[in-house]
């Protein structure tokens, strides 16, 4: 007899279901069920994940069986749990309208509750039962549910079932008899289910652990909160028939319900909003009108032929695919930002098209680089186009609220992000449920990555053989990737023409004024819904500020698109690796790469952005590319054996990158062209590598690709490297189109840095926190580029950093009050507005600006009173005497002048202490580098400085001391990189893993470190110091701080890190 399981939960029934949707579906097929109903608790967030494998399998089955439909059906719905004590009801849509009802019902519940809560009442269901097929799940004592059953039977005539389950609780058969009785009385058919929580009985322990996590219990004391047995797994038809031998009609009913449900998620056809189209025109006409109008505006002397050809091709393709409304929607959003003066730039597969360039969505000129539209153009990828738009991070919220306003909350929602268990959270929760100490969580994974090497556990003092630990780790591994809750995506919007809440339920986000839908981007992708990514980018804020400064101080009006192109000075600067603060290429690895890659034109920047990524690095593609670029190696293209295809089949794929795959889409094309993946398989591969959970399935792709390429005559090593690269793309996939958009920002920021270093530094400082470097390094870099930097001063500074007329008409950078730790923006505002021609002394400043004494203390401490002729010590001494709170104006006018007092003769502050205090208050000092005060002493010890290190020959043995700026530990963990700084420059230090184990504490704890090691020079001029020994010299900094010494074993408070912080904390990995 055919049988289907129609009440099954997945792990999207958070902390209840113990199997993923795909696992449930797979097991149901294995067991020979002909259908499964996925219903999670008050959500449909997990249904798409269950749907995708079924759809794929159906397509495959149909192909293999001459178009016959697969005898398996997936029902998607939700299990409605009510807040008013009514029994749970599982609801499946009978058709598309029913799906709309269900989504609306869940939306009602979601919007009633706080984030993540769904507050549903039984009445809500009674009011919206049309189009739904319902299964009432009776409580422990089924008779209690009888009134609700008859109520619901009236509201949903002919569409209600009574669910019965046989969980081997002893009195199952008696209970079943009661249910049959009830069913007969209420004229509701009885439905055989198993109310499954997991696929196989083996998941029972995990389900117990989940229950404990949910209830905050420990397994050994949770008792009867846990299930008594492992019966809530999926069961095959024979087993179900045996269990329900007293009520065979209940098994038959599964088939009736299955047949009644005609809805499939593939019916959710997307309909684009119509908003931007004026009445009387089709969207395509409107798009073409705008495009050509703007094109003529942009090229008054005639559109370049290449661009014109591209526009025609693209517009035809857009018409063919009916994507016009999508482009219009994006254009609409970008126009809004433009009108408000918010910088934005699009990226993504469709963004780098001529149409997008003309519409102002992107600034990558199709004239400048070869078109990347191909990826999007490929017909075989039956996916909606993908355009992400970055906005200034400080102003993105305006755009978001505009979208809500324009389309309405019922039609616009942000996509969800599924927050999943990660190693750390998994081991913590499992550890708690198993009753292990909290400590385990942080110790076992601690600051390590995503895996659990045994030696880490051993090192942490735990025996990995210890069964308790082993078990906790096993559970944690099972739990990893399980969803914990939904959160809102950073900016992926779903827009619809009709009501959004009839397509997917909407819920409240934690942030005020935000609502988000229950599906994440993968789900949306899988269903082919349209998404507009509205993202925030710090560099755009910085560029906006820089462009504004250029306008006010240099009288030059520029936009992202009007910056002069092909400027050799800019490329020369980048070739020198002089890129601190520049977008994307400012990291240590990027700076090292610049002199090796020597970018000369825009496309080189595209490659530069993409090459220092896990993909090309793991695939070992970086060095071959560099060798070929420098001419040290011939450009060759791997080829299949002649009988398998043309030898140049990869030229088209790899031509632009000298035969070396660097971009994500090249790797994908490789899979299709060289390993003969179908485009559907390639898409599966792309999806598989994007999702953390699919680590297991990637192995099958690996075999398929490597074997496929080898069989066709490719070198096995090359095939394996290609796949390693695809794996590397997994977490940080970087397509060419993104690289191109980023490269444009690289160029623009480089241009400003190159030609207007003061403007660049000022904008960068005013956009903090962003980027890779702290204000100290930005200021230092600016000064090295000849910018005069002036200290913050109460008579000259504003909140933001500003530009002033410097000597010889050059702009000078005046630090703003925002650089002073603890100073508040409203204080700065009061100070600036009441400053007039300047304060003559501190007392008048306190009185006129009405600042609290705290504010003045901070100013004094930051040495911002020099214009009054006071250094920080004198100023602070005066400030401390002022009254604590600002006096009301009249009282202040009447207040007696502070009287004369005896001379105190404070000792003068030594320069070293000034510098140290500068660092403590503003994290930088314009007076000197702290290391310069230690130089004499270090010279005596024979230590050299950074400049000397850069000048030494390869292999020279040196000893160096410097302040630690950055510590990094790249993914593979072979080495730790440290960047040291002193008054002469910086040095990059490499510490190999073995040495790191030995000197771990010194490496991690030192602010000031002494390194002994060998100089390593690369042919391109990069210099590293390979450490052999490191010594923590941080205590030398303490001596700088106060010439008077604190007795050893003195008060502990004196050693509190806050008090001894001299150099701001370095940026570290954890």
């Amino acid at each position: 007899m055919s049988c289907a399981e129609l009440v099954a939960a997945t792990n999207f029934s958070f902390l209840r279901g113990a199997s993923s949707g795909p696992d449930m579906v797979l097991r149901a097929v294995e067991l020979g069920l002909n259908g499964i109903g996925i219903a999670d608790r008050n959500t449909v967030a997990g249904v798409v994940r269950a749907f995708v494998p079924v759809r794929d399998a159906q397509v495959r089955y149909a192909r293999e069986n001459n178009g016959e439909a697969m005898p398996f059906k997936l029902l998607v719905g939700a299990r409605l749990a009510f807040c008013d004590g009514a029994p749970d009801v599982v609801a499946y849509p009978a058709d598309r309208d029913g799906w709309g009802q269900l989504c609306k019902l869940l939306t009602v519940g979601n919007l009633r509750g706080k984030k993540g809560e769904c507050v549903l009442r039984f009445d809500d269901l009674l009011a919206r039962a049309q189009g739904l097929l319902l299964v009432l799940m009776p409580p422990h004592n089924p008779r209690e549910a009888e009134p609700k059953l008859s109520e619901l039977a009236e509201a949903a005539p002919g569409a209600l079932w009574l669910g019965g389950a046989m969980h081997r609780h002893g009195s199952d058969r008696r209970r079943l008899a009661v249910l049959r009785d009830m069913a007969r009385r209420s004229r509701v058919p009885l439905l055989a289910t198993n109310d499954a929580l997991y696929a196989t009985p083996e998941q029972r322990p995990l389900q117990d652990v989940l229950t404990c996590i949910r209830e905050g219990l420990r397994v050994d004391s949770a008792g009867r909160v846990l299930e008594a047995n492992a019966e809530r797994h999926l069961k095959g038809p024979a087993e179900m028939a045996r269990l329900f031998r007293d009520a065979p009609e209940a098994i038959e009913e599964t088939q009736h319900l299955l047949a009644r449900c005609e809805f499939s998620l593939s019916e959710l056809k997307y309909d684009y909003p119509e908003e931007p189209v004026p009445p009387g025109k089709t969207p395509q006409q409107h798009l073409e009108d705008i495009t050509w109008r703007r094109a003529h505006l942009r090229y008054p002397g005639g559109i370049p032929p290449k661009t014109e050809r591209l526009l025609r091709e693209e517009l035809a393709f857009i018409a063919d695919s009916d994507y016009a409304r999508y482009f219009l929607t994006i254009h609409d959003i970008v126009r809004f930002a433009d009108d408000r003066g918010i910088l934005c730039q699009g990226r993504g597969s469709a963004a780098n098209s001529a149409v997008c360039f003309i519409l102002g969505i992107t600034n990558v000129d199709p004239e400048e680089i070869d078109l990347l539209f191909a990826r999007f153009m490929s017909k075989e990828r039956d996916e909606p186009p993908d355009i992400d738009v970055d906005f200034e991070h400080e102003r993105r919220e305006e755009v978001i609220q505009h979208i809500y306003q324009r389309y309405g909350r019922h039609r616009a929602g942000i996509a969800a992000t599924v927050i999943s268990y990660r190693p750390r959270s998994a081991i913590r929760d499992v550890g708690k449920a198993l009753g292990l100490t909290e400590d385990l969580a942080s110790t076992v994974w601690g600051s390590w990555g995503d895996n659990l090497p045994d030696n880490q556990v051993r090192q942490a003092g735990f025996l990995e053989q210890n069964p308790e630990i082993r078990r906790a780790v096993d559970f944690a591994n099972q739990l990893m990737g399980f969803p914990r809750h939904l959160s809102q995506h950073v900016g992926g919007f779903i827009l619809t023409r009709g009501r959004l809440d009839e397509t997917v339920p909407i819920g409240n986000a934690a942030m005020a004024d935000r609502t988000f839908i229950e599906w994440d981007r993968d789900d949306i992708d899988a269903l082919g819904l349209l998404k507009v990514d509205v993202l925030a980018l710090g560099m755009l804020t910085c560029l906006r500020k820089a462009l504004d400064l250029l306008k006010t101080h240099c009288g030059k009006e520029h936009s992202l698109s009007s910056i002069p192109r092909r400027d050799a000075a800019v490329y020369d600067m980048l070739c020198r690796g002089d890129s601190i603060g520049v977008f994307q290429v400012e990291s240590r690895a990027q700076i090292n790469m610049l002199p090796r890659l020597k970018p000369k034109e825009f496309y080189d920047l595209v490659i530069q952005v993409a090459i220092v990524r896990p993909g090309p690095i793991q695939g070992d593609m970086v060095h071959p590319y560099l060798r070929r670029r420098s001419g040290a190696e011939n450009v060759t293209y791997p080829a299949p054996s002649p009988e398998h295809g043309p030898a140049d089949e990869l030229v088209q794929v790899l031509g632009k990158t000298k035969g070396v795959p660097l971009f994500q889409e090249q790797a994908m094309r490789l899979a299709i062209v060289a390993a003969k993946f179908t485009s559907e398989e390639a898409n599966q591969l792309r999806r598989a590598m994007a999702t953390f959970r699919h680590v297991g399935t990637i192995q099958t792709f690996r075999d398929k690709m490597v074997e496929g390429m080898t069989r066709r005559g490719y070198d096995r090593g090359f095939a394996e490297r290609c796949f390693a690269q695809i794996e590397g793309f997994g977490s940080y996939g970087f397509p060419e189109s993104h690289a191109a958009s980023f490269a444009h920002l690289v160029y623009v920021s480089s241009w400003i840095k190159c030609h207007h270093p003061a403007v660049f530094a000022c904008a960068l400082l005013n956009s903090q926190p962003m980027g890779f470097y702290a204000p100290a390094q930005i200021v230092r870099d600016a000064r090295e580029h000849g910018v005069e930097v002036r200290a913050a001063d109460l008579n000259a500074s504003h909140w933001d950093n500003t530009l002033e007329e410097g000597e010889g008409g050059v702009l000078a950078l005046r630090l703003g009050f925002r650089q002073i730790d603890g100073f508040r923006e409203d204080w700065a505002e009061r100070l600036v507005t009441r400053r007039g021609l300047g304060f003559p002394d501190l007392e008048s400043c306190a009185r006129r600006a009405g600042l609290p004494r705290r504010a003045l203390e901070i100013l004094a401490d930051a040495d911002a009173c020099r214009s009054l002729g006071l250094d920080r010590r004198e100023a602070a001494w005066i400030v401390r005497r002022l009254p604590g709170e600002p006096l009301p104006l009249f009282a202040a006018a009447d207040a007696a002048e502070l009287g004369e007092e005896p001379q105190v003769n404070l000792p003068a502050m030594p320069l070293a202490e000034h510098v140290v205090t500068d660092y403590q208050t503003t994290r930088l000092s314009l007076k000197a580098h702290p290391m310069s005060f230690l130089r004499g002493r270090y010279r005596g010890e024979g230590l050299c400085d950074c400049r000397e290190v850069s000048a030494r020959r390869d292999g020279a043995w040196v000893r160096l001391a410097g302040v630690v700026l950055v510590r990094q530990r790249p993914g593979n963990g072979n080495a730790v990189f440290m960047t040291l700084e002193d008054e002469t420059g910086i040095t990059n230090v490499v510490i190999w893993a073995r040495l790191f184990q030995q000197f771990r504490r010194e490496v991690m704890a030192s602010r000031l470190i002494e390194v002994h090691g060998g100089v390593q020079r690369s042919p391109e001029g990069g210099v590293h110091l390979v450490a052999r020994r490191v010594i923590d010299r941080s205590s030398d900094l303490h001596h700088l701080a106060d010439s008077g010494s604190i007795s050893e074993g003195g008060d502990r408070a004196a050693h509190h890190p806050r008090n001894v912080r001299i150099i701001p904390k370095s940026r570290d990995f954890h």
Partner: protein
Amino acid sequence: MHVDQAAHRLGLVPGLTLADARARVPELWIEDDDPPADSRLHAHLAQWCDRYTPLVGADGADGFLLDITGCAHLFGGEERLCADVTGRLRGFGFHARSALAGTPESARALARFSPGGIVTEGGEAEAVRPLPVAALGIAPDPVRALARAGLKTIADLADRPRAPLAARFGADLLDRLEGVLGEKIHPISPRRPLVEKQVEQLFPEPIGRVEDMLAALRDLAGRLAILMEQDGEGGRLFEAAFFRADGKVRRIAVSTARPLRDPHLVARLFSERIESLADPLDPGFGFDSIRLAALVRQVRRVAQAGLDGREAASEKLAELVEHLAARLGEERIVRFAAQDSHIPERTACLCRAQTPPPDASAWTCSAAGEPPLQPLRLFEPPQPVEALAEVPDGAPMRFRWRRVTYEIAAAEGPERIAPEWWRREEKPLTRDYFRVEDRDGRRFWLYREGLFGDEVEHPRWFLHGLFA
């Protein structure tokens, strides 16, 4: 985060975050902060300091101020006293440092910011001069402000005019400065002694008869009851100390099941305890004093007696338990308590009867009108039987127990109970329980151990209980 000396030597400092510390020293030993325990320890040590002087004050959470005026000679002089204090504390495993000076402030400053030692009279000002200003015991903010002004040691302050200092840092700073310099003495504020509930009776003539002792205990219990009544308390643990004329002390304790005050009941508990002692009270030459203390006390709610007398019944039960416990020993009076488990033999455990009565609702009850799912009587261990049943999970049709065969007329089940996987057992097996009735109407509780095919090939059968 705080660190011990070993961690300090590794370069860890207080205030680091745990993640930072672990990144540096992964094999770190970590204990959770437990402020109540710290303050208990501190209070305990303060009490211990009473041995030197009755005037003991706390100094922060990790120090003590002792006013030893007139006490030093008892310990052989100041030096010996200081050595005694630090020596004993080190013996307990503490790092201790002491300083002795004319004012509490200077002693404190020297103990915390110098190697310590004894300051000769009038030498305070000289001794504290090199100390950092933090030694004044002022907040971190003014310490930092003073350091910014270049005033880093007490000498820097002492040598400067005081009015500008007061104008900036308040009179409190001057006050402390004067204290540290020995110019002004602030008496220490001694901690409040712990209130104990204990009463004592001295006898002009040593007594030896048990009746006399019990009579004395009754009187003492009466006085103790008054003390406890003032605070609305009752005793849970009483201790009587009998001081023999020759200096030996015998202590006897009784505990109760509820907070108790009634002197008669207390005296009766003692009399039962004394009568049942394995080694009886040996009066020797007689006891010259008896002390009675309520060591553990609880708030005693005064409840009005209900009309149905149910409270009275539970009072009676408690009384019975107390008497039995006093006579036979607490550990021998036990009762059942419900335990939360699916495994039948783990649904109950024995616990001391004197612990508060467990929540009756924790017991499994079948719903009203439903038959009980488990019998009241269980076999421990379950009795192996031979049974004939349908595979895989059918009910038994007949079984043989103690050489008698029972033909089964009716059965219900299975009730499947899976093993508790988190326990470390040899080979955990799932059980299928059946409630069965034989042809004569006898009802049994049987189970099959192990799932047929999945867990074992030939499941064994057990009789676990009989329904009444």
